[in-house]
């Protein structure tokens, strides 16, 4: 009896300790020669999952560096930020992370500087403007991974059926073309406007750029509710949403829905990035591309998006990380960008892709690249601001734009104060 009670008590105690220990560090450190890499999934189906890409990279890397092991964890875009946050909170920090933003981690002093974990040769090979975008206060932390720009996609069959001669250049022409598509019933959704949580900030910035607006002023202070921005959303609300020329609820419609609709021939036009090229081809949609229309003419600079690679200091595995990054950036970039049809960030891959003649469909994106405008990526508060926009930004086209944007501006100012 006595022993049994003691055993039970001990068992419960172990369990209790085990439970509380769950929060402690269960990974992260470990042995110096095992790298933990967390990466986003760019694939949209099993056959092009990013996991396949990374498996190959690791396999080839191991041929040259037998002593270094790399554990890869690929997470989809909707989950990666949350999961990484949980990893950091629980002390289970990855050694390498490839995702959409880096600056918030700089604010907490979690990252190696770029020059600590890459060779000069690797950095010189990366397009300069991207290296610049990886800087926080003049020091580079973010290592560019891939880039893309946005252009207007339109369905040629739909345009023909609706009697539209050429792609719209101004906002009024967008509304006019959408009206024609609606009248002729050429497509279910004349203009696909995805302002859902997936990428609210992207669509928002594209439209705001069209009216001389944007997220920050020249000094980097947030101007989310500037006169131009409120005007932009008021226009969208009155000219696209209210007349039923786009989704009834843009605030809950994600980009992936819009892309899928376009690839299924259900949408007349939308702003898209290179992934849509492949999707449209797979859906046998005869599409055309044009520079995104602004209020009074095509955008001079479109939205450029870059994704990032970053290295965490926590595990202290600087040397192994450097070997892995130098290997990947010198040998495996082309493979990645060909797999997903993205414009590369390294000079040699850009040249190879442009000269091979196999990527003609990427030309429009390459052309927009030099003038592309980025999010305020180097601002540590940006990640909070962007998350807030994803939550409520889309409501600006159905509710009062001034109020919704004003609310966001307040939150952005708070975030900037606490960064």
């Amino acid at each position: 009896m006595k022993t049994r009670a003691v055993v039970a008590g001990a068992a419960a105690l172990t369990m209790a300790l085990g439970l509380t220990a769950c929060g402690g560090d269960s990974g992260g450190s470990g042995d110096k020669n095992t790298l933990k890499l967390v990466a986003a999934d760019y694939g949209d189906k099993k056959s092009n999952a990013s996991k396949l890409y990374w498996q190959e990279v690791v396999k080839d890397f191991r041929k040259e560096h037998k002593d270094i092991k790399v554990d890869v964890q690929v997470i989809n875009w909707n989950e990666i930020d949350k999961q990484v946050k949980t990893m950091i909170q629980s002390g289970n920090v990855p050694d390498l992370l490839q995702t959409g933003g880096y600056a918030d981690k700089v604010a907490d002093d979690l990252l190696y500087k770029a020059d600590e974990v890459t060779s000069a040769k690797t950095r010189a090979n990366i397009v300069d403007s991207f290296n610049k975008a990886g800087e926080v206060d003049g020091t580079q932390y973010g290592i560019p991974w891939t880039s893309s720009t946005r252009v207007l996609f339109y369905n040629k069959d739909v345009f023909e059926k609706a009697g539209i001669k050429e792609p719209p250049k101004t906002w009024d022409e967008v509304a006019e073309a959408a009206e024609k598509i609606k009248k002729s019933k050429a497509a279910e959704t004349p203009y696909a406007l995805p302002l859902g949580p997936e990428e609210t900030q992207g669509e928002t910035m594209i439209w705001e750029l069209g009216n001389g607006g944007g997220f920050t002023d020249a000094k980097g202070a947030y101007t989310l509710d500037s006169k131009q921005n409120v005007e932009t959303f008021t226009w969208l609300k009155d000219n696209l949403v209210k007349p039923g020329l786009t989704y009834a609820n843009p605030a809950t419609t994600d980009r992936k829905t819009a892309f899928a609709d376009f690839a299924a021939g259900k949408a007349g036009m939308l702003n898209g990035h290179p992934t849509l090229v492949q999707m449209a081809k797979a859906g046998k949609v005869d599409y055309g591309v044009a520079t995104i229309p602004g209020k009074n003419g095509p955008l001079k600079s479109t939205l450029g998006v870059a994704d990032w690679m970053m290295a965490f200091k926590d595990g202290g595995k600087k040397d192994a990380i450097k070997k892995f990054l130098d290997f990947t950036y010198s040998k495996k970039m082309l493979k990645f960008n060909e797999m997903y049809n993205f414009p590369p960030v390294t000079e040699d891959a850009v040249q190879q892709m442009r000269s091979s003649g196999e990527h003609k469909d990427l030309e429009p994106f390459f052309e927009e690249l030099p003038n592309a405008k980025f999010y305020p990526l180097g601002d540590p508060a940006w990640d909070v601001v962007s998350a807030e926009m994803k939550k409520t930004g889309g409501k600006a086209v159905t509710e009062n734009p001034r109020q919704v944007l004003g609310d966001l501006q307040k939150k952005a100012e708070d975030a900037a104060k606490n960064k």
Partner: protein
Amino acid sequence: MSLKAPPSPDPETAGSRARGGRSSRPVRRPRGGGLARLGPLPWIAPVLLLILAVVVYPIVELVRTSFLNISIAGIIRGSAGTDKYRKLFDETDFGHVLVWTVLWTVVVVAVTMLLSLGLAQLFNQRFPGRRITRWALIAPWAASVLMTATGFKWMLNQTAGVLNTVLLDLGLIDKSRDWLGSPGTAWPWMMFVAVFVSLPFTTYTLLAGLQTVPKDVYEAARIDGASGWQTYRGITLPLLRPAFLVGVVINLINVFNSFPVIWAMTQGGPGSDTATTTVFMYKLKETDIAESAAMSVVNFAMVVVLVLIFLKVSRWNEED
């Protein structure tokens, strides 16, 4: 906990233990000495430890987190005092999220209880196929709530949903509608699903209650010439009270905390227009984990208050 309830060792044993040092007289429970002094503790200790680990510890941690300043990357930057609570109460959406949480809870629980009363009554009758229908009722309960909600989400989908297709084919609507896209139509649908998944448990609770009502009471009522409705109000309902109360309390807590239905169907969007406090708490996590913890603490307090008020109003103890 009934720490003092079990009988303490009888006086003789206690005495023998006290004198144990100087007397070699055989004691009645020679091996129970050390443990007996601890009373029932060794037996309930595992449970106590478990409660400490899985109930008390997380609550302590939750409250602690709500007073911390945590960066978006997840690093603790020191104390935040009551800042996070102030930030939470200042949220533009906080007011209407609270209102909707109350509405959501009241409507879903009320409708569930009413329908379940009827269903339980029905299933208490003898009719052919009763066994099968009783089994069928378990289906929504047996299926994962998340699966059910996801299923409904797709049925309500604007372009591919079966509901739009049917309504279009019947000519009831002229353009397919985005049912979950705006709060006006999303709330009723989510409430419908929440009721749907709450029915089985509630009905079975009430059914069990109904079966404890003795037959002779009904017989007596019939002899006295009571009408069906009189019998129901005068006999069935009062005797069903314990089961009914259990159903209400458990549903209140369940529905108030209900997360999967809303998260699977709308993620609380657009903005926080279709969020209850539980979903709102989850959404806050994306921007500020400490503020989210503050919301959790408020939630926790609300559940405790809710249950206390309810027990008071229904004079729970009197029934016991």
